[in-house]
């Protein structure tokens, strides 16, 4: 399934994901008394082109465990999908449904390596510039038409069409062309060599040519297919009632065999409290990204099982480096030390979170385990600030420097309660060291607009970490204008390292470079890295074979099942 880096907006779209449970496969929580499953993180293996037999074996094992068919899974989600067409979908709910309806060339393993899906196998040419996929010949679109290489080629062409605006178009930037060798063989030709060729080739769901070829590119954004998709995945689209629910039903002639659950329904409930309420009362069976404040109450419910996964996103307090206030590294370090991040995690995340020292989280292979850190130490912070000339000379309790008070506005977006709360906490914490902070909570669109215009002093926002190790769009000096280097971080040495590391084929060398790069950022503290929230999932205990994995809570959704005697619907 297609996961991409995205700014977590409105707090509704945390791309959630968990790691392999300590419990062995098949042994599902309802057998054991265990009702809260803490999962330990394991980083991906980075550049991974060869199959991972261990995981594939497990996948098949899961598939072949004896099970009953029937019952329905109701998934609670706060936002409606915008489109079920991978080319036009932007909302996370959409991509979750798409994951059930459509196949990609490969499936992602728990360790981010690639497993066969639509493509049975693949290999690179000698020069590593041509990547050939051998497709299954027993995959049918839900309308009965066979899925062939032509669909793959067609999909690629649509993905790179400027008149459609596919969200992840950039991933295809180094692919020169896509060639159909025969009905079940397709070849991607690359312009250059780099670690993520395979991933770039397979990203995105394969779409049915025979239906979409009639649609002009300009009309793709509003074509009927967006709402009545015809896929080739384990589930087939049944009905979508706007703002109510999206229902998919088991695909009887799925190549891997009929999935156990009759129906999976994504129920849209626009209100967090209401969602939690329905989880409690059993009106919905599953919810991911449960706000921590509800954990206590929900964990009390006999019929719910909690999966706690390490977060794939982090929130930060970004300092606008164009603003004279924040141009000194020492000041930024002092600001970080003035913030008690552990307390933020304890009080706002109810301890469901960790302090990230840098922009690369532990679950990524390039993660640097021991970066320089600036732990909470108001004394030291004051001292640093004093060294930079910020003292409380007029004794009014606020720091000042040549007659100017140390005060600034922190912006964030509305709707994400934790972020709104952080402003309140931070305001209080900075007060202790004599810095006056004004919170300013803006609508999402307004907030983003200001960030782009650099119209902010400091801002709280978040990133969710992508599958690819690439720091360009957020940290590179080229990305300062209308890209995502909001804080205008500019460091020639970093740029150089980054550019080199991206194309370094030797994972070990690459790792060294990435570590160096992370050290620089940690040192410069253009962000104060606030927290990386754990992802809380609750699922009704009647579901067996629930295998939440690194690639997402829905890693093996198509394999969940309910024993006949426990079936609810």
């Amino acid at each position, binding site marked *: 399934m297609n996961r*991409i*880096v*995205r*700014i977590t*907006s409105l707090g509704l779209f945390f791309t959630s994901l968990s790691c392999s449970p300590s419990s062995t496969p098949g042994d599902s929580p309802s057998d054991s008394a265990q009702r809260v499953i803490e999962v330990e993180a394991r980083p991906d293996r980075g550049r991974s082109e060869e199959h991972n037999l261990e995981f594939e074996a497990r996948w098949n094992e899961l598939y072949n465990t004896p099970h009953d068919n029937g019952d*329905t899974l*109701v998934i609670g989600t706060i936002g409606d999908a*915008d489109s079920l*067409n991978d080319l*036009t*979908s*932007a*909302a996370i709910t959409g991509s979750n449904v798409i994951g059930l309806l459509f196949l990609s060339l490969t499936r992602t393993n728990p360790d981010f390596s690639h497993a066969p899906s639509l493509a049975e196998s693949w290999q690179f040419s000698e020069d590593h510039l041509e990547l050939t996929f051998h497709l299954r010949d027993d995959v049918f679109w839900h309308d009965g038409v066979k899925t062939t290489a032509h669909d793959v080629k067609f999909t690629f062409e649509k993905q790179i069409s*400027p*008149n*459609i*605006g*596919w*969200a*992840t*178009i*950039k*991933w295809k930037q180094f692919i020169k062309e896509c060639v159909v060798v025969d009905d079940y063989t397709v070849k991607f030709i690359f312009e250059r060599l780099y670690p993520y060729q395979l991933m770039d080739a397979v990203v995105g769901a394969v779409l049915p040519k025979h239906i979409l070829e009639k649609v002009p590119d*300009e009309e793709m*954004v*509003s074509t009927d297919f*967006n*709402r009545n998709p015809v896929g080739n995945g384990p589930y087939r689209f049944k009905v979508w*009632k*706007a*703002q*109510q*629910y999206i229902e998919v039903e088991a695909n009887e002639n799925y190549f891997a065999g009929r999935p156990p659950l009759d*129906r999976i*329904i994504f*129920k*849209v*409930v*626009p*209100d967090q*409290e*209401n969602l939690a*309420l*329905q989880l*409690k*009362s059993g*009106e919905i069976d599953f919810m991911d990204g449960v706000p921590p404040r509800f954990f206590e109450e929900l964990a009390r419910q006999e019929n719910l099982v909690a999966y706690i996964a390490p977060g794939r996103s982090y929130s930060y307090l970004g300092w606008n480096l164009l603003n004279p206030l924040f141009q000194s590294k020492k000041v930024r370090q002092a600001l970080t030390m003035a913030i008690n991040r552990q307390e933020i995690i304890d009080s706002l995340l109810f301890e469901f979170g960790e302090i990230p020292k840098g922009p690369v989280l532990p679950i990524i292979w390039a993660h640097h385990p021991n970066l320089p850190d600036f732990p909470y130490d108001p004394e030291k912070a004051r001292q640093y600030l004093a060294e930079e000339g910020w003292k409380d000379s007029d004794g009014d309790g606020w720091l000042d420097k040549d007659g100017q008070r140390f005060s600034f506005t922190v912006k964030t977006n509305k709707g994400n309660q934790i972020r709104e709360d952080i402003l309140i906490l931070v305001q209080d914490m900075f007060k202790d060291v004599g810095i006056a902070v004004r919170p300013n909570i803006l*609508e*999402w*669109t*307004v907030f*983003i*607009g200001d960030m782009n215009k650099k119209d902010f002093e400091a801002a709280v926002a978040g*990133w969710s970490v*992508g599958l690819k190790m690439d720091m360009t*769009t*957020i940290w590179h000096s080229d990305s300062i204008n209308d*890209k*995502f280097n909001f804080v205008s971080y500019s460091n020639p040495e970093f740029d150089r390292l980054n550019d080199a590391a991206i194309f370094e084929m030797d994972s070990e060398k690459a790792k060294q470079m990435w570590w160096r790069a992370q050290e620089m950022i940690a040192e410069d503290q253009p962000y104060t890295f606030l927290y990386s929230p754990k992802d809380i999932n609750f699922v009704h205990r009647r579901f067996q074979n629930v295998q939440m994995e690194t690639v997402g809570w829905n890693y093996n959704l198509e394999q969940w099942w309910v024993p006949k005697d426990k079936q609810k*619907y």
Partner: protein
Amino acid sequence: MHTYIIRRILISIPLLFGLLTINFFLIHAAPGDPTDIFYNPDMDPEARENIRRIYGLDQPLGVQYLKYIQGVVLKFEFGYSIAKKRPVKDEILEALPNTIQLSALALLLELSLGIGIGILAAVKQQSTFDNAIRVTSLTFYSMPSFYLGLVLLFLFAGGVSATHWFPASGMVDIVRHESMSTLGRLGDRAIHIFLPSLTLGIGAAAGISRYMRGELLEVIRQDYMRTARAKGLTERVVVFKHGLRNALMPIITIMGLSLPFLFSGAVIVEQVFGWPGMGRVAVDAAFQRDYSMFLAVNLIFGAMVVVGNLVADILYAMVDPRVRLS
């Protein structure tokens, strides 16, 4: 009569047009940009430009305005929703009936409850019953709908397990509805719409009952009531035949005027109870800067208000022989 209706409709056209124009420039003046919802680091600025171009957002505002108006006027075409990836018309055709359902029921509740209680209070005027009713209805009248909704939600929709009588959101039991008997489906819809419509209607009902009481007390003082009594009619006939009809007339107007408030209320209630209606569409559209969606929704709301008032006036003319529509 007909000429009157036609004239009213004609008058309302410039009104709606003005509404449309104001909204158009308002929403465009608001900072932010619809393509912000596609915002993610993998999307190149070019890709965003593509989308802006596809939706014609790259053209000067004046041109966009003219195009939009042209579309609406000539083809009755409301453009495409950027956030929903579909023609605005489709989305609205899906949401509108739900809101109408909700509002209609709320209105029904509002009138039946309001008028009934109002009459009781007036007839038992100054009694403790009257005061009790007045205070209670006032309390509901003064209660923010979101608050009432929240309370009801937690009391009767799962917060308290003992009294978990109603579903917390949606229009139907999405899992079982299909497999239900016709009667079952009806019941299913009923229990789903109950809390939302109650939340939406009860406040207004309280308002109506206050008016009703006042009006009836006013009418009871009239000479013709004395005449009626002098005829030897029973008190019931006097109050209900001679009193009520007169007292109801102003209520009709109030009802007409209360429509926009009903819709504003729907915005909140639909949020709290996850009711898939226009209110939610409107709020989303406003926040996501989904221009054409926002415009269309407001236009519809405006039109409904206009029609509502028209209907109210016609009703009025029907019950009050002194009023001639011309």
